[in-house]
């Protein structure tokens, strides 16, 4: 799709410019705090023009931003779709204008983007499931009752995460090794609502919950707040995702069992590399392929591995520069940091 780039346009040689649309800032901290930062750095390093916008979870906004980027003369469009439909509409528009396309983090089904760079969301869920199993096993739980605190019912990623951890947990339920407890979605990933929902889960089961699969650190923290009220924090393992400062601190204290760290820098760097290559008309190498389940076609992909973070490898996240020691080890956490080998 890039060959014609140099000659097309009949004289007006277009300067390489990359447009990125991020999905929102409420569902996860990563988009604004990490992705934007790393992408900016990578683009600057490569010396290309770029703009990065956030659709704030609004599909109409998403479209609007895309329209405007196309209007603004970008040559490569990189999107994190809000859903495949909107994503496809935007990709189609871009392709019609001869713009190179990259799906970032989320695959647009039937969208036909040139490349796909991502963590595997189902894999994230799998790590969460495995993490919970590990923590329960370490704690020596017998027939533990598991509560699942899923993400927003309107977020397809929440469904993918759930697919991942249920893949681990379901067999255990089936084998009667674990007991399936309450299992609910949290509207808008709202932490306050998560607190209410988890509190009622506790009431419903007479506090007999032995493990909490929380889909991200925010939901995990909401559950931990309720557990604290019942003085059960630290005794009931809770999972998370995103390796937020708070989540990591909860892990250091021992209230949270694990979180999933997506080395966003690697993802961002990988995507930026592809984008720059596209913009410059080069063909990248070393890619795998992912099957688009809807169109049945293979998409050229760069897939990155999420990492499960427990107390003993919190230091890796700091080492990666994803969180700083100052944030993490403030105040009462200094000792814990030292103990966890963070320096």
């Amino acid at each position, binding site marked *: 799709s890039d060959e014609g780039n140099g000659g*097309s346009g009949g004289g007006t040689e277009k300067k390489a410019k990359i447009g990125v649309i991020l999905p929102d800032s409420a569902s996860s901290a990563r988009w604004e705090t990490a992705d934007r930062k790393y992408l900016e750095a990578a683009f600057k390093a490569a010396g290309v023009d770029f703009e990065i916008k956030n659709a704030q979870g609004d599909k109409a906004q998403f479209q609007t931003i895309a329209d405007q980027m196309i209007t603004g003369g970008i040559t490569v469009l990189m999107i994190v779709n809000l859903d495949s439909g909107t994503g496809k*509409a935007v990709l189609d528009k871009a392709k019609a204008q001869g713009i190179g396309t990259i799906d970032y983090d989320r695959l647009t089904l039937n969208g036909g983007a040139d490349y796909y760079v991502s963590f595997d969301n189902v894999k994230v869920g799998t790590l969460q499931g495995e993490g919970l199993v590990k923590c329960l096993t370490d704690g020596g739980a017998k027939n533990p009752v598991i509560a699942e605190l899923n993400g927003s019912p309107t977020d397809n990623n929440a469904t993918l995460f759930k697919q991942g951890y249920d893949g681990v947990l379901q067999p255990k339920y089936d084998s009667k090794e674990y007991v399936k407890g309450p299992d609910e979605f949290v509207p808008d990933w709202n932490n306050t609502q998560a607190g209410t929902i988890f509190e009622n889960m506790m009431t419903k089961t007479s506090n007999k919950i032995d493990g909490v699969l929380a889909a991200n650190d925010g939901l995990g923290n909401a559950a931990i707040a309720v557990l604290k009220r019942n003085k059960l924090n630290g005794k009931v393992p809770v999972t998370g995702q995103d390796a937020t400062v708070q989540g990591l601190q909860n892990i250091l204290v021992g209230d949270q069992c694990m979180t999933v760290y997506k080395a966003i820098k690697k993802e961002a760097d990988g995507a930026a590399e592809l984008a720059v290559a596209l913009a410059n008309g080069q063909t990248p190498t070393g890619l795998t392929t992912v099957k688009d389940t809807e169109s049945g076609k293979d998409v050229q992909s760069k897939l990155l591995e999420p990492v499960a973070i427990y107390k003993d490898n919190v230091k890796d996240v700091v080492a990666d520069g994803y969180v700083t020691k100052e944030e993490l080890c403030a105040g009462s956490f200094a000792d814990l940091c030292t103990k966890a080998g963070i320096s």
Partner: protein
Amino acid sequence: MTNAGTTQPVASLTAHVAAYWRRVRGGDMGALPAVLGILVLVVGFSLARPVFFSATNFANLLFQGAAVTVIAMGLIFVLLLGEIDLSAGYTSGVCASLAAILMLEQHMPWYFAIAIALLTGVVTGLVLGMLVSKVGIPSFVVTLAAFLSFQGVLLLIVKQGQIISIQDSTILKIGNNNLPIWAGWVFYGVSIAGYAGVQLYRTLRRSAKGLTRDPMSLVALRIGALAVAGGVAVYILNLERSFNPARTSLRGVPIVVPIVVILLVALTFVLSRTTYGLHLYAVGGNVEAARRAGIATDRLRISAFVICSTLAAIGGIIAASRDNSVSPTSGGSNVLLYAVGAAVIGGTSLFGGKGRVLDAVLGGAVVAIIDNGMNLLTESSWIKYVVTGLVLLAAAGVDALSRRRAAARGLS
């Protein structure tokens, strides 16, 4: 009228201009503040980002603002009665999703699917209206309950976070395609001719009856102004907007434009020229007086909710078409607040009795321009939120200050 000699049937054009100027200086500005606000926004954004003022972006604006504008048009009927419909956003989502799923899973033809979506809108409005007028629950509570329920229904329809894509090409055209060049001009011609016809007919009729009427020159001026403005707009939209015309051509009036214009004309007619519309204003102004005049206020209330929900369904279909899909967030987020905001910014009162369909279009334009312009202006999302709020405030402030001046002079 009976005060001898103060009004002549036909005042001269200059007298009219003078009177208008006096009214404006007195603070009675009609649509002027809203139009001025739009102008200021356009100039401001264009200076900040020249690309804002391009044919492409103009077309984008129209696509972007259409759905909210249509939903706002419906809301105006409900607001006129002093009621509110908090569920209009999700109604749009539910109706559109129903259409989408029927096309996808039942392979229904698009016209059937749309008919069912509209019917769902009608039934929704009927139920809401009955609960408000027959049972007597405040509309805020009824539609808050609907707001919650419809989120659930939407989830049910689109199955827990899935996305349903729309593949029907006819539906996809609504929110994405343009009229052919010639069709744009034909539409333009018919619209202007119609407007001119109505204006002339009414002036002549009043003249024949010896009633006060506007001078012909003013009528001509109005028709001319509309013709020029419309002509420029159509001309611009008929320019090539594609950056790569070799590969694909993008020109013509977006299909949403005739849809919005036809709705505007039809609904304005209903509100200003029919008994039904007059009764809506009467009930909004003074329910008791309307009831004493023998108006069936309950039926009127129900009908307003029906219109609101039906237009929400239309708005939902436009949005779904533009998104190429429906999802559990269709019609959610800020759709409702933007729609009510558009109506209120346009000049519709939340207390009933005051509002025009044009308000939805003007207010919808303000909202769309701010949204569009802010996306061009900044990248940081927090700045965008903050500045969007501030610009909205500034736009409404212009309007408020001018109206305040009017009020201070005893004009309503």
